[in-house]
């Protein structure tokens, strides 16, 4: 399905990989370098909705290029982690850093400006459970909206780039279709292409197959496998597809009631989990 490797001149992944290495190499002092080692860093992050505490003093780090999957029962706070990293919400406490830069505070402790936040969050991309394609725009228009408005690319330049990504997800023939003319799987592949066209250094995937039947989920997961294998983009994934999580992740973090109860390499988590809660969760999911 992935054709990006057929066109090495225009490999859509190389730019993201280069950007990531630049980001890690751009910092001068040791402490800055130490911080920049993490693509995403949650420091004692908590989040409440009214009286309901969703995240409790969460510490989580993702290295540049690392593929981390969050698993756990529904309502355990996994999606909230992604939404906070994407600045789609503000934590109640703690700090979140993207490549060493706080998305909440300046060095002086003041809240960062909207402009600074925009600059930092441009390094992240997110794909949603419900695709969230723009229904009034064609597939091609969906892909060029952000490059033309945010990156100020010319329409022609943005279209060339968009078509490369459409080829990558094997949907170049749907460029002029509207999202409502596509299957759920095709829509989600377009949503992935739309996120990648902005060349994010971090990609957040929020239960991207939950709204799809198994056959369509397979084609979406194939695209993510391709992204994981061929690019150096950091992936933070929330999924209930355990086989996929095991295959694609460098590390798995198990969530329960707003806390990480266990984390480690996939073989350990799925083979010999330490926590009884992890064992019972995996048992219930895998036997389902």
């Amino acid at each position: 399905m992935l054709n990006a490797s057929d066109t090495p001149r225009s490999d859509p992944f190389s730019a993201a990989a280069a950007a990531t290495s630049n980001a890690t190499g751009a910092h001068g002092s040791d402490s800055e370098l130490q911080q920049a080692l993490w693509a995403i860093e949650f420091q004692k992050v908590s989040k409440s909705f009214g009286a309901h505490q969703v995240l409790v003093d969460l510490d989580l780090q993702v290295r540049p290029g690392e593929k981390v999957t969050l698993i756990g029962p529904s309502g355990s706070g996994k999606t909230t982690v992604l939404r906070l990293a994407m600045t789609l919400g503000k934590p109640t406490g703690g700090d979140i850093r993207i490549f060493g830069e706080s998305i909440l505070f300046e060095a002086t402790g003041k809240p960062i400006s909207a402009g600074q936040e925009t600059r930092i969050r441009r390094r992240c991309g997110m794909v949603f459970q419900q695709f969230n394609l723009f229904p009034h725009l064609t597939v091609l228009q969906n892909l060029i909206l952000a490059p033309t408005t945010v990156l100020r690319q010319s329409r022609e330049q943005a279209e060339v780039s968009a078509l490369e990504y459409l080829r990558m997800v094997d949907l170049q023939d749907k460029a002029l279709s509207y999202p409502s003319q596509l299957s759920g799987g095709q829509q989600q592949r377009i949503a992935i292409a739309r996120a990648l066209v902005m060349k994010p250094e971090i990609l957040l995937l929020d239960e991207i197959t939950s709204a799809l039947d198994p056959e369509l989920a397979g084609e979406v997961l194939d695209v993510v496998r391709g992204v994981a294998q061929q690019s150096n983009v950091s992936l933070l994934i929330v999924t209930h597809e355990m086989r996929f999580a095991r295959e694609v992740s460098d590390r798995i973090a198990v969530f329960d009631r707003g806390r990480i109860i266990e984390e480690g390499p996939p073989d350990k988590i799925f083979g010999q989990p330490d926590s009884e809660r992890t064992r019972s969760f995996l048992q219930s999911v895998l036997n389902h």
Partner: protein
Amino acid sequence: MKAVFEYWPVLAQGLWVTIWVAVCIILGALPGAVVLAALRLSETRAIRVASMLLIELIRAPSAVVLLFWAFYALPLLPGMPRLSPLVAAILVLTLDGAAYGAEIVRAGIEAVHRGQTDACHALGVSKIQSFRKVVLPQALSQIVPGFGSLARSMIKWTAIVSFIGVQDVLYVANYVRGQTFDTLTVFCFLGAIYWILTALCGLTFRALEQLLPLNRALRAARASAHAPEIEVLTGAAQ
């Protein structure tokens, strides 16, 4: 019909005033509605509450009461100008239309799924750009039919301007009725005039709906959903 033909020049003049007032208040209400809706959706609570109170203040009284107030009571307040009947009529009906329209615009914007703005945010698109390029084009599919319905009502609202002496088609028709005593013909003519005006307004808004991007996309989806059926039917015919 003799009464209508005989007095056609004055009736046409009245009709022209009605059309002029209707066009002014509809076109004036549209930006007013957008501004009031934007205030209603403000992130600042004080602005939200103030705009809501203003909308309710305008919507609550009868339009005739507002009209009388603007024309008769307003000049009694210190420093307030005496408005001409036409200006007072256009001002009051525009404000009333803007207040009703604001709720249509607000509802249209709020009907756009939250995921759309989330997706814009995730792509780094600014709030203004996301409103202009994503939210508003989709909201228009909700707003335009609602506003079309309001515009038809607004044409009928113009009938009250005769109460303060604006010589619209109702004012003139009443005059013709007094001169000819042909009540049935004059009021049938009047009914037909309002029917034609509101029908034309409805057709204009229907045409506008066809141009909206989301409606275009839905039409394309419907056409492609029916395409296999059409192919089967043509195949069977061959």
